[in-house]
C-alpha cells in the first residue's frame, strides 16, 4: 500500500485548486439562493393572500413554487457543492481535476441549465414531476453536464494511489448515482411508463435526488471539513464504513415511501418503510462518529463559526431522520400525508441540514478565497442566528400545523375550516422565512464588505475564524 503522503514533487495548493472557479461557483450559488428565497417568500405571501403581484402571469405563484425548489436543488446546492468539491477533491487526492478548461465549460453549461430551467418553468413549460420539472429540451444538456462532472472529478480520484479517505467513497458513488438518478427521473416517467408505475419511478427519483446526490456529497464534505477545522482526525474511520455502506444499500430502496396508500403494491410500500427505519440506525452511527470527533472540545462551537454551522446542521439532520423513521410508518401517514408537516420536514432537510453545511463551508472558504478576514463578526453571527432560529420556527410551525390539518381532515370538518385555522401558522411561516432571508442578506453584505476591505498579507485566520 503506497501512501499518499506529500513528497517533494507533490503539487502545491495553487497548482491543485483553481480558486477562481470555487469563488465563481459559490457566488453563483448565493445568487440562486437569493432567487429561490424570494420565490419562496412570494408563494408564502400568496398563502396568506397578500401576493403583491396577483394576477400577473409571469409572477404566477404556482410557477414560482417550482422555481423555489429547483433553484435550491440545482442552483444553490449543486453549485455550492461543486464549488466546495473543486476545493476538497484536489486537496484530498493531491491531483488536479481532469481538465481545468473543462471545469469552466461545466460551470457555464450548468448555469445555462439552471437558468433555462427557471425560464422554462416561468413560461409554463414545466413537467409534472417534483424536481424533474426541468423542461424536456433541457434534460439532455443537464445529463451531459452531469457526465462531464463525473469525468472531471473521477479522474483525480482514479489517479490517486493508496487507500481512499471516506470522503472520496461518498464522492465517487455520488457522481455515479446522480447521473443515473437524473436519467431515471427525467426520462422514464415521461417517455416509458405512465400511471402507478410512473409514480413508483417518480418516488424513487425525488428520493434518490436527496439521498444519492445531496446526502453523499454533503456528508463527504463534512468528513473533509470537520477534521481539518478541528485539527483532529475523525473519531473512527472504520465506523464511517458502516455509514457509507448503510446509506448505499438502504437509501435507494425507499423511493415508494413518498406514495404510501397509493395503488402501488402494498408489499413494496412495506419494503420501503422497513428500509427507511433501517437507515435511521445507519444515520445514528454517522452522528455518533461526528460527535465522537468533537467530544471534549465542544467549546469550539462558540468561536469557530464553520464548526457551529456544521454541527447545527448535524443536529437538524438527526432530528429530520428521527422524524423520518416515524412519519414513514403507515400510522403516521394516515394523518400527516398531504399536510404542511411534509413541507416543514422538507425545509428542515434542505435548509436546516444541507444549506447550513454549505453556509459553514462558505464561511470557511470566503476569507481564503478573498485573501481577507471577515469584515464583520457580528454580521456572521446575525447570519447564523437568523438562519438557525428562523428555520427552527418555520419547521416547528409547519410540522405542528400539519398535525392539525391531518386531524381536521380525518374528522371530516369542512375544508374551509382547515384553511381558516392554517392562516395564523402561515403568517408565522412568512415571518420565519423573512428572518432566514435577513440572515442571507447579512451574509451577502458581509461578503461585499470583506471584498472591499484591504487584503491581509498574513495568512487568513485558520478555519475562517473571526476577529473577536
Amino acid at each position, binding site marked *: 500500500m503506497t501512501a499518499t503522503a*506529500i513528497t517533494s514533487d507533490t503539487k502545491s495548493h495553487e497548482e491543485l485548486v483553481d480558486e477562481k472557479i470555487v469563488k465563481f461557483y459559490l457566488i453563483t450559488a448565493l445568487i440562486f439562493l437569493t432567487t429561490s428565497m424570494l420565490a419562496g417568500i412570494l408563494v408564502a405571501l400568496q398563502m396568506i393572500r397578500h401576493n403583491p403581484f396577483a394576477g400577473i402571469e409571469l409572477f404566477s405563484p404556482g410557477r414560482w413554487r417550482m422555481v423555489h425548489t429547483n433553484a435550491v436543488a440545482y442552483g444553490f446546492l449543486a453549485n455550492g457543492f461543486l464549488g466546495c468539491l473543486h476545493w476538497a477533491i484536489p*486537496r484530498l487526492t493531491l491531483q488536479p481535476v481532469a481538465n481545468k478548461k473543462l471545469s469552466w465549460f461545466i460551470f457555464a453549461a450548468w448555469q445555462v441549465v439552471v437558468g433555462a430551467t427557471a425560464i422554462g418553468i416561468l413560461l409554463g413549460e414545466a413537467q409534472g414531476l417534483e424536481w424533474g420539472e426541468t423542461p424536456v429540451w433541457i434534460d439532455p444538456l443537464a445529463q451531459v453536464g452531469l457526465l462531464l462532472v463525473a469525468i472531471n472529478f473521477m479522474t483525480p480520484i482514479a489517479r490517486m494511489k493508496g487507500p481512499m479517505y*471516506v470522503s472520496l467513497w461518498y464522492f465517487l458513488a455520488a457522481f455515479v448515482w446522480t447521473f443515473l438518478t437524473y436519467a431515471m427521473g427525467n426520462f422514464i416517467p415521461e417517455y416509458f411508463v405512465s400511471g402507478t408505475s410512473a409514480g413508483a419511478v417518480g418516488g424513487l427519483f425525488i428520493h434518490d435526488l436527496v439521498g444519492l446526490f445531496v446526502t453523499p456529497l454533503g456528508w463527504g464534505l463534512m468528513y473533509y471539513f470537520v477534521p*481539518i477545522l478541528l*485539527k483532529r482526525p475523525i473519531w473512527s474511520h472504520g465506523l464511517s*464504513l458502516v455509514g457509507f455502506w448503510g446509506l448505499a444499500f438502504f437509501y435507494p430502496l425507499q423511493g415508494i415511501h413518498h406514495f404510501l396508500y397509493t395503488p402501488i403494491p402494498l408489499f413494496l410500500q412495506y*419494503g420501503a418503510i422497513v428500509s427507511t427505519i433501517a437507515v435511521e440506525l445507519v444515520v445514528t452511527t454517522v452522528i455518533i462518529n461526528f460527535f465522537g470527533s468533537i467530544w471534549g472540545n465542544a467549546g469550539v462551537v462558540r468561536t469557530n463559526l464553520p464548526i457551529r454551522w456544521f454541527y447545527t446542521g448535524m443536529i437538524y439532520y438527526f432530528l429530520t431522520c428521527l422524524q423520518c423513521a416515524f412519519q414513514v410508518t403507515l400510522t403516521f401517514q394516515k394523518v400527516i400525508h398531504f399536510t404542511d408537516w411534509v413541507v416543514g420536514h422538507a425545509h428542515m432537510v434542505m435548509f436546516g441540514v444541507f444549506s447550513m453545511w454549505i453556509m459553514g463551508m462558505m464561511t470557511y472558504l470566503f476569507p481564503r478565497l478573498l485573501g481577507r478576514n471577515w469584515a464583520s463578526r457580528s454580521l456572521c453571527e446575525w447570519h447564523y442566528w437568523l438562519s438557525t432560529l428562523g428555520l427552527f420556527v418555520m419547521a416547528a410551525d409547519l410540522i405542528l400545523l400539519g398535525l392539525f390539518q391531518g386531524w381536521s381532515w380525518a374528522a371530516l370538518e369542512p375544508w374551509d375550516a382547515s384553511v381558516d385555522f392554517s392562516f395564523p401558522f402561515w403568517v408565522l411561516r412568512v415571518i420565519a422565512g423573512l428572518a432566514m432571508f435577513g440572515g442571507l442578506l447579512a451574509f451577502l453584505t458581509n461578503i461585499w464588505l470583506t471584498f472591499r476591505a484591504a487584503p491581509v498579507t498574513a495568512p487568513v485566520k485558520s478555519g475562517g475564524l473571526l476577529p473577536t
Partner: protein
Amino acid sequence: MADPTCESTGVVSTHKDRSIAWTVTIAFGVVILIPCLMGFIVKFGELVALTKDPADGGFAITPVINYLLASAGFFFLLLWAALNGMFRDLERPKYLMLENERELDAHG
C-alpha cells in the same frame, strides 16, 4: 498561538469525562430504543397475526424473506471481506489526510 480554540491537543480523558460520556450514550440509546422497540413489538405482533391468515399470509411474509435474504447476502460479503483481511489498518487514511492538509497549508 493565534487561536487556542482551534488547536486541539487531544482530550485528556479523566474518569469523570468517561462517566459523562457513558451517561449521555446510555440516555441517548434509551430515548431511541424504547419507542423503536415498542413500535417493533406491536408491528411484529401484527405481522405474526397476519401470517396466520391463509389468504394474505404468503403475501405478508414474502417481502420480509426478500429483505432478510438481501441483508444476509450483504452480511456474508462483509464477513468474507473481514476474514480476508480487508479491514486491517482501517484508520490510516484519516491521519494521512490531516497530514496532507498541514503540508499543503505550510507550502501555500
